[in-house]
């Protein structure tokens, strides 16, 4: 195989790349509105949309990097990466810088690094590898091994506390697990035991997390306190009505009724300014995005590539589902951003890297056709 093959380009899923870039572009435009900072000259604060573009460029670098080599090399990298992320998580656990009361960052001087994001990648790789090597449905033994892989990193992440990311990984590998299939007997037992364990989890939650769950159930109890985000984001979206209030005209977002509007609640800004029509278009784009990943899954020619893209699929699927569900009041507030639309440094770079992995799988499916 030559180091460069024209077929790499012809097999690349251009639609997926384009729809992702479109989403990212919409995100930047939306961030311009969500973080527009008006002031006299001499103000040095860089707005979020400008920073987001820089992160986008870095992300594109990550995307090219993640799609430039044959993804099958990752099989041998899965374990080393896993150990590196575990070590980093431990470092954070011991020394990490605290932001908003949660220790999630390692300060490298020039930027803050979130080992959580690397952990997502390494868990995905390792679980894909594991399922690749597991021929039949998951038995008690294989299921225990599978869950054992992610138990420690997830526990460390949740203890930071970053419930959102921990949940993200759990759902990602959980999705892959169900996709792969579980023995009926095992599945049946789990279906009985897991709901019974739910109340136990309640006691493991931090107070603010419990509060979020309670607020989700009764937001009107505390309209100016914890329920504020939910109510105001619903007012923002609802008041967009059919056509929206127009770019930069969203009173809810421009007048700072929306907290965290540039990160977790970007959808509220978008819904207010672009209305039902705009939001539906955005939904269609996301739907098309996931559909394209599904096509890659279908077209993949080896088990590792297959599970890798399944992982990527669930990675994005759950983020969209949880973020939208939270903003639309369908589930408690969990700090999970909307892919490509929310502002974020490492999270955006990792999004592009995951996208790169899916593209990598799609680019190299010819290897098997001819081989």
């Amino acid at each position: 195989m030559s180091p460069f093959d024209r077929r790499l380009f012809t097999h690349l899923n251009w639609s997926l790349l384009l729809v992702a870039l479109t989403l990212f572009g919409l995100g930047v435009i939306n961030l311009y509105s969500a973080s527009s900072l008006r002031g006299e000259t001499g103000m040095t604060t860089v707005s979020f949309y400008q920073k987001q573009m820089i992160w986008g460029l870095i992300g594109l670098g990550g995307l090219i990097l993640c799609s430039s080599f044959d993804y099958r090399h990752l099989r041998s990298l899965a374990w080393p990466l896993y150990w590196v992320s575990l070590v980093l998580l431990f470092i954070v656990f011991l020394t990490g810088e605290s932001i908003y009361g949660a220790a999630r960052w390692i300060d490298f001087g020039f930027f803050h690094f979130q080992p959580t994001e690397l952990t997502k990648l390494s868990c995905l790789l390792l679980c894909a590898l594991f399922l690749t090597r597991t021929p039949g449905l998951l038995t008690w033994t294989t299921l225990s091994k599978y869950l054992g892989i992610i138990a420690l990193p997830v526990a460390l992440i949740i203890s930071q506390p970053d419930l959102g990311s921990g949940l993200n990984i759990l759902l990602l590998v959980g999705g892959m697990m169900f996709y792969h299939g579980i023995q009926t007997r095992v599945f049946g037992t789990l279906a009985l035991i897991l709901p019974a364990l739910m109340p136990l989890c309640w006691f493991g939650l931090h107070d603010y997390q419990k509060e979020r769950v309670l607020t989700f159930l009764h937001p009107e109890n505390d309209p100016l306190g914890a329920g504020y985000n939910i109510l105001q984001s619903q007012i923002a979206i609802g008041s967009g009505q059919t056509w929206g209030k127009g770019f930069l005209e969203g009173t809810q977002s421009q007048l700072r009724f929306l907290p965290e509007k540039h990160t977790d609640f970007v959808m509220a800004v978008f819904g207010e300014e672009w209305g039902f029509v705009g939001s539906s278009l955005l939904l269609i784009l996301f739907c098309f995005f996931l559909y394209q990943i599904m096509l890659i899954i279908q077209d993949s020619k080896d088990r590792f590539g297959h599970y890798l893209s399944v992982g990527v699929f669930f990675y994005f699927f759950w983020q969209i589902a949880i973020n939208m569900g939270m903003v639309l009041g369908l589930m408690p507030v969990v700090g999970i951003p909307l892919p490509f639309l929310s502002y974020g440094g490492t999270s955006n770079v990792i999004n592009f890297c995951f996208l790169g992995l899916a593209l990598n799988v799609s680019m190299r499916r010819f290897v098997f056709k001819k081989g």
Partner: protein
Amino acid sequence: MFRSDQVNTLPLHRVVILQIAIIILFATIFLRLWYFQIYKGDVYARKAEANITRIQSLHAPRGLIRDRNGNILADNRPAYGLALIRENSAHIPTTLAQISSWTGISEDLLYSRLKKGKGKVQPFNPLLLVPNLTFKQLAYIEARIHNWPDLSIITRPLRTYPYGPPFSHVLGYVAQANEEELQANPRLALGDMIGKQGVEKSFEEILHGQKGRKHLQVNAQGRTLRSQVIARPEPGTNLDLSIDCSLQQLVWDSLEQHAGAVVVMEPITGQILALVSKPGYDNNLFVQGLSSRDWKKLLHDPSHPLQNRVIQSTYPPGSVFKLAVAGCALARSDITTSTSFYCPGYYRLGTGVFRCWRRQGHGKLAMSDAIARSCDVYFYNLGEQLGITRLSKFCRQVGFGRLTGIRLPNESSGLIPDKEWKLQHVGKAWQGGESVITAIGQGYTTSTPLQIARFISALVNGGHLLQPQLQNDDHPNIQGRLPLRDKDRQFLRQAMIQSVADRHGTARSLQLPQVTIGAKTGTAQVVRLTEKHEDKDTEEIPYKYRDHAWMAGFAQQGDRIYVTVVLVEHGGSGSSAAGPIVKDIFTHLFEE
């Protein structure tokens, strides 16, 4: 190169799970969006509208305060302030830095003002950071403020007192309502100015006016789209005082560097023409907000500039009180105007010796001479004969020891002692000697200058005890009558005239052509003088041990009649310290 997996081992049939997941997810989100944006869209649109509607108070200008000739004593001028609406701010530190560069106010100070106001100002309401912009700053900022949606220029009427300290005690001042006041009056909002002292406080009800309300709708940039006045502000009512501005200033100047109190009153109407307490303070400082350091400085100033000496300070009335004692004696059948006593310069009661101010004595005198020359021994005799019970009863009837009812805050009632009072407050029985010194206005007896003015007024207005009035259009409010026969009252009035006209009279310096003037001097002992100090001139005695100088008098020309009471703190003798001031006042009043 890789151990390739078998294509046919791929679980492709499971892709359908993904398809179902996509359909469920997007159908749910789509339905939820439809529910919020279409089905409930107008409900949320109304809620968003309520979010951008703000209620703004419209300040009602406070009523003006004018003197009897229409001169404005308390005015409103527009003040421009710079306020921050925190919720509109993209980055508060940047905004504060900009304000600092515009106004030169340090960022630290701005931060501390922001911190102070944070809990008190409602969200989306302006928080005043710079209360007074100069016109230059205003013009500069006005041209640039469009770049700062979080800043707004606030115009509000600000009280000014153009004449300053001479009027500080009459007018008082307005300042921001404190927490207690806010709770007591639900109509007040944080930052509202209310009267705290003087007539600003006592006439607060009519001066204050009523705030208006305005609804503002703002757009996404925080700029006002529509505004609607819901309630118009009702300005406060103007207050016309009986005070004569030029007389008030003359009195102030006439007191020179002395601390003291002066009141000028029309005895027929009870209207106050001048009410001066010196030293005063600049009441404008309170309006702009006094720093706690400046406040403490004023509060602990040993010369008590905040004290309204005319109504709040109580002094031993000294010889001025002899008029009341004489009245009390005349009300008794066995003492007449011709009752005379011999004055050897001292009076002996039991083992005690009480001196007359004239050490060589006055010889034998009748009552009118005793008043005119202010003979102490004559009144020691009266005091012993009358006794404290009769004396205190009479003095209360003529207005001592109780409030005059002037509409100014914190009036003191002074004190007329009697046996019960002493037993209760001092815990000892009344001594005969105490009745004797009460008769010359010393001992426990204290009164305010205003009480004396009211008493003198009653002597010259036909015996009516009037409420001192501050409003120009007030009608006389008769609170009582002197328990004196007309001829006895006339006698006392005549005795005062004699004090001025007589060549031995203590107030002879007051004489003015064409004007009938009567007066009584007084010297209020601050401490019992030691022998050492007694022979010295006033200038040689340390200031705080010097006597207070009193002069109370009236001047009449035809229908016009005025009463004046002057007290000069630590001024020495009444005639020398207070006399020239009384003369200045009467000269001014009858000048034209």
